[in-house]
């Protein structure tokens, strides 16, 4: 294991940035979100939860897919896809928590399944993920419910942070490559400190109020029962139909494709969409879900029943708790799980 003094982290960022892009939690106008690093940016690794998840580093909220150039009656289709690896445009996603890392696995199963989403894959191929273990989980966290260990996230490199040092451990080939690039800044050591931190964090995790949520009822065989449960009405009653939960969520993956008229022709882009919106999956005949209750139900059924039934039981919630903190009216997946999932220890 390697370690670097906290006050030298800026040197580490600068070193990485010499040859690679660096996405890292940065504070801007009071809020911490993943952003491109640059000299003078206020990095905040201590922030437990960025407002947006890191997914927009490889699944941006808005992305151009292609362009159509028109000249007279000719339409030329311009492929804007890039091979970032070929072009040498590699980047590091730094500071990813265990829950958000697990979320990448959830997204991979959607975007990397046939037919492969080439836009997504191009970014993923160019990305090295440096994860960061949690040391101060808070009451809205429940990653443990989904079998995630917040103290030992996977990733190309795993790091731990304490008051004095950042500890570093490469796990993959990509991680080794990155380590070779920055090794001169590090010294050996940290096993003891990391072990102690893990133990201390585990004690906090075990006592979290959401540590023992019961997911037993969320199984494919209960699909119809859950779908017809009368509790959805009261669970969704206060829902504003905004997209906050979907846009802060690390596993939400839906997008819309639209065309945008420019002077030179048409730009086709995709952007995150939200199943909470009234025009989500709008078709010629209208909307398939006409009430907010139906939209609300769709979101949670997808996370807890539909997705796992197609992915060997893997839930598409990772317990990051962002929706718990950010829903304007304080609705969230935990309230759904508690109401529909059955009693604890069932």
């Amino acid at each position, binding site marked *: 294991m390697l370690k670097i003094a906290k006050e030298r982290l800026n040197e580490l960022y600068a070193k990485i940035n010499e040859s690679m892009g660096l996405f890292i939690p940065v504070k801007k106008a009071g809020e911490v979100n993943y952003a491109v690093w640059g000299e003078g940016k206020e990095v905040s690794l201590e922030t437990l939860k960025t407002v947006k998840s890191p997914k927009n580093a490889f699944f941006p909220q808005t992305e151009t897919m292609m362009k159509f150039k028109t000249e007279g009656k000719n339409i030329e289709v311009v492929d804007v896809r890039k091979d970032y690896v070929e072009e040498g445009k590699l980047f590091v996603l730094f500071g990813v928590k265990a829950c958000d890392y697990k979320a990448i696995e959830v997204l991979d199963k959607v975007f990397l399944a046939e037919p492969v989403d080439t836009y997504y894959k191009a970014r993923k191929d160019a990305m090295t993920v440096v994860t960061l273990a949690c040391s101060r989980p808070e009451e809205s966290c429940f990653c443990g419910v989904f079998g995630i260990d917040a103290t030992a996230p996977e990733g190309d490199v795993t790091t731990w942070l304490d008051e004095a040092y950042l500890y570093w451990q490469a796990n993959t080939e990509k991680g080794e490559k990155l380590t070779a690039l920055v090794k001169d800044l590090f010294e050996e050591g940290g096993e003891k400190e990391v072990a102690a931190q893990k133990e201390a964090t585990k004690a906090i995790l075990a006592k979290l109020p959401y540590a023992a949520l019961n997911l037993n009822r969320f199984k494919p065989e209960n699909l119809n029962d859950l779908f017809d449960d009368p509790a959805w009405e009261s669970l969704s009653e206060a829902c504003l139909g905004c997209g*906050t939960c979907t846009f802060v969520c690390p596993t939400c993956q839906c997008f819309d494709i639209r065309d945008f008229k420019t002077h030179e022709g048409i730009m086709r882009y995709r952007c995150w969409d939200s199943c909470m919106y009234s025009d989500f999956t709008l078709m010629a005949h209208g909307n398939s879900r006409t009430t907010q209750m139906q939209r609300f139900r769709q979101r949670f059924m997808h996370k807890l029943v539909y997705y796992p039934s197609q992915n060997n039981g893997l839930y598409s919630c990772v317990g990051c708790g962002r929706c718990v903190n950010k829903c304007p009216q304080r609705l969230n997946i935990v309230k759904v799980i508690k109401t529909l999932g059955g009693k604890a220890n069932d």
Partner: protein
Amino acid sequence: MKDVALKMIDRAKQLLESGEVARVIGWKKGDFCYDPTPAAFETVEELKDFVYDYFCGANLSKYLIQMSKKEGKTAVFLKPCDTYSFNQLIKEHRIKRENVYVIAVECLGKLDIEKIKAQGISFVTGVEVVEKDVKVFTADGETTLYKPDVVLSKCATCTKTHQVKDEEIILHERPAKDVNRFEEVEKLEAMTEEERFAFWREQLSKCIRCNACRNVCPACSCLKCVFDNPSSGVAAKANDDKFEEQLFHIIRAFHVAGRCTDCGECSRVCPQNIPLHLLNRKFIKDIDNLYGEYQAGETDEGKTPLTSYTESDAEPKDVFNGEAK
């Protein structure tokens, strides 16, 4: 506040039991002490989860658009600021007034859990407020915070009083406040154009286009928003760190100008804490200056400055040059 909550529950019980109302809109307790959810209670049994405390910041008025059209009467607990939204919605014919029974409830300012957490406090199990002290209880003990530091931004400068009440539950009078709600707007006005542009660009670039501000806004009650209509030609779901996209918020501020009651819900719900209420307040301040003081939602009838013409109205050129009245 506990005494107020008990009175409210008693009253809700009576109203439901007697059949005077079919439902009561209030707040339902959450998992923690700070996450109540707006809810409709239809039976006395359901009232066991009813709460009213320092974290009941949500404005319940907008729910009445739907609720007042249901069968039977709906009772609603409204805080002072909520009553302005209620009036405005009546004025815009969005709520069926005859189907609503308004119970005015006291409000001494609501707390913002994010601001409390930002002070490094987590695992909050309860709060106790005595004048300007907020005692925050956690598993490890208690900490006292200064109330003005941890109230919702909409409460910081609020001096509103109930404009509508069929009855009231007020046990504690709110101490008079001497505040200027335009102070932050004035700070922005004092900036150079470049500084102000930079301020808003930085703030608005955080926008994730979740539409929470729009969806919570009682003045945004269009059945179908132009931004949700794919055939409008301007519907755009994408956020983009370009000024064109940031116009969304400015367009919205224009649309609600003269109708915004300054309820502050937009800033309360913003996941990125963009001070959106300042855009609306700038409009309110300008309307005050150009057309004479006007508070939207003070009544549910009468003319409004931007929808009625008088000969003494400011001319566009005066507005542009900042020379009006």
